């Protein structure tokens, strides 16, 4: 009974896809929606292939990916280090954990105009906003992972004479690892989203910059092709990061 219902679910999903594409095509037929607002699908898909040849997207993709990798590295190193230091004492956890959680609820994107002043229109301000936004889930999950390891494990390891390093390496780290990994995954994804957001607000290069400048020139058809590309990149990043998390989780066990 299980198989046919899964097949039916996929059929429904296919149906939705066809319906969306059909509605898109139908709406842009002559007499439909203005093509400046919604371009017809076929030129959009044609424009998508042009992205890899004449209208090369690689330099902009490289800019965005470089910003993303730098931001993720900065946020992971600082978040994990600070999280580790705080988690060493239960008192520090009680002092800093609510403080960081409170800061996390403030929309950090408001700092972006300030970062533009500090770091300029180039990659610097995007790296800064990506790092700021990715830092919080990483540090909070590192604290949550390390500080709430079951006390029984620690007592057991201590009573068997484990040194500080052994305790950390063989008990704390494996126990905390899945939670820390979740933080890193969330950090990777929000960093990418906020970098795209930053590029949309103001920038000199990058995927977001391309989309915005095409929008400002009213080249909606090419803009849609670029949006399609950015969405695919986001999905690829999502899949890679989720896969890496699952992999890391299994590798640790």
């Amino acid at each position, binding site marked *: 009974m299980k198989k046919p219902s899964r097949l039916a679910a996929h059929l429904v999903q296919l149906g*939705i896809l066809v319906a969306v594409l059909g509605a898109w095509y139908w709406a842009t037929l002559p007499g439909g929606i203005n093509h400046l607002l919604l371009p017809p699908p076929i030129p959009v898909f044609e424009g998508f292939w042009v992205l890899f040849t004449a209208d090369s997207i690689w330099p902009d993709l490289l800019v965005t990916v470089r910003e993303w990798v730098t931001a993720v590295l900065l946020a992971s190193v600082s978040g994990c280090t600070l999280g580790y230091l705080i988690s060493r004492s239960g008192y520090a956890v009680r002092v800093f954990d609510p403080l960081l959680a409170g800061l996390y609820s403030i929309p950090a*994107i408001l700092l972006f*105009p300030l970062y533009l002043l500090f770091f300029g229109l180039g990659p610097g301000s995007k790296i800064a906003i990506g790092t700021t936004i990715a830092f919080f889930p990483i540090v909070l999950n590192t604290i949550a992972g390390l500080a709430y390891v079951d006390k029984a494990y620690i007592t057991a390891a201590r009573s068997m004479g484990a040194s500080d390093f052994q305790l950390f390496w063989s008990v704390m780290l494996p126990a905390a690892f899945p939670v820390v990994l979740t933080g890193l995954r969330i950090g990777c994804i929000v960093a990418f989203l906020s970098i795209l957001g930053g590029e949309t607000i103001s920038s000199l290069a990058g995927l977001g910059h391309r989309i915005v400048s095409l929008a400002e020139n009213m080249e909606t058809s090419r803009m849609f092709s670029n949006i399609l590309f950015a969405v695919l990149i986001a999905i690829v990043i999502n899949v890679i990061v989720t896969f890496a998390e699952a992999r890391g989780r299994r590798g640790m066990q």
Partner: protein
Amino acid sequence: MNGRRGPIMSPGMARLVVIIALLVIWEVGARLYADPLFLCPPSQAVVALPRIFSDPKIIHAIWVTIYEVFVAFVLSVSFGMTIGLIVGLQGFTKKAILPVILLLYSIPQATVLPLFILSFGIGPAAKIAFGLSHGIFPVIVTTVGGVQNLRPSLLTAARSMGANRWQIFTSIVFPHMIPSFFTGMRLGMTLVLLGVLLAELYVSTAGIGFYTRLFAESFAPPDLFALIAVLAAIAVTLNEICRMGERRFSRWHNG
């Protein structure tokens, strides 16, 4: 580790000390080293607060943002919960539709922001629509998650006692869903705020995002920091309200 000596002060007190220490470092650092065009000491931002609150244009901007956030939030919660319940209550729709929703959720909305502006203009409508596009997904996902946690034995018991659909909904599904409603509302609120501000920063003629950008571009850091502080206070308050609701209504659930 197990020393009987208690810490010198309570964690809440120590947190306050940390915050004050950071502010003092910022104050001293900014006074000694910073370029006043880019960074100001926090005391100047405090001085700028009354100036900001006496400017009717800025008061108006704050109200515009609150209005946009409020409308987008109400729409996100009502649409999100309805969709979440419709999708979540049926095993088949969940299997078929939920992956589509998750796929849409993973789309970076910043890339479609120009489209929102093209279709809704540069007024509040585009911000509300963009906020809605951010806020609706966490509400849907937590609502579906809440339905999933429904214990089937309760449903079977109710049905075997002859409850009809409406009775099952009001006395079993709905009370069971309250904690996840609040979780969804809190996540939705955070993202609605993010979406509205992002849209305001991108292009706008009013709202907090517009003035943040204006103050940054006119090199007026005291006003900028004061405005950021006001917004931070609003964000923390909204978040705390949702968190309180979450705690208050999930108490019976855990007990």
